[in-house]
């Protein structure tokens, strides 16, 4: 399992940077082009929302994008430093797109900020096992 973490200043110009990193990793772990497009869009929406939260609060602290590629999943966390319980900056549309695209999404609010966690399956455990058997030396 490997981790990539990107911290970026809450600028809309860096949302694309985050998209590029996420899409690049999605390709690396072998996700199909359609899923790579989903990753790109969903991560972009989550990051744009995080930037809007920081802008609304006048925060200059960076937003953190954390991507873990496990044997079976690609897990992406977008973390902002917003207040728990604060109203959504763009009423609904960005998160609506994320929840429409991604089966496994969790939006968590905590004292340190908010997380939007999105998980894409890469290999099922059976596929992972088969692959391991196929590559095992005889």
């Amino acid at each position, binding site marked *: 399992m490997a981790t990539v973490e990107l911290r970026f200043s809450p600028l809309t*110009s860096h*949302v*694309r940077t985050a*998209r*590029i990193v996420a899409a690049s990793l999605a390709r690396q772990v072998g996700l199909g082009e359609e899923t790579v497009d989903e990753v790109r869009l969903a991560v972009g929406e989550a990051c744009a929302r995080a930037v809007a939260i920081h802008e609304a609060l006048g925060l200059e602290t960076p937003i953190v994008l954390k991507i873990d590629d496990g044997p079976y999943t690609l897990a992406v966390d977008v973390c902002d430093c917003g207040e728990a319980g604060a109203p959504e900056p763009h009423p609904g549309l960005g998160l*609506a*797109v994320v929840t429409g695209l991604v089966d496994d999404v969790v939006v968590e609010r905590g004292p340190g900020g908010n997380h939007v966690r999105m998980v894409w399956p890469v290999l099922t455990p059976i596929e992972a096992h088969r692959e391991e058997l196929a590559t095992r030396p005889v």
Partner: protein
Amino acid sequence: MRAVSHRDPTGMPESLSGGDIAAEERKGTLVDLSLETRTVGDRTVLAVAGEIDVYTAPKLREQIVALVDEGRYDLIIDMSAVDFLDSTGLGVLVGGLKRVRAHDGALALVCAEERILKIFRITGLTKVFPIHATVDEAVATAG
């Protein structure tokens, strides 16, 4: 960092052209989005190329507002060369639709890429915009 400006077919160049973006911003355009307007009869075709996202969408909004201010209420937004569209971009398109409708105008879109149409489908906006596969088809259809 040597400036590189390009878009690959998948809309995801691996290089980050930050220096290039700064240079283009000074010139008043964004590397990641280009806009071109032309008229076809009494309709205006706004051809958009590149990525419409939270960063570039304001530029598109500005252009739509300018067209409406000029009295152009029958718009066709050609997105055939758009590589990426997010919800901010959608919001700008919805805003454009409202603006022209306030003058009894119309706004149609040209887009045949499934990867771009997807966000319209997810948000239900395929029902709100007339979407055509080509500019010719859009022009042939009454606004």
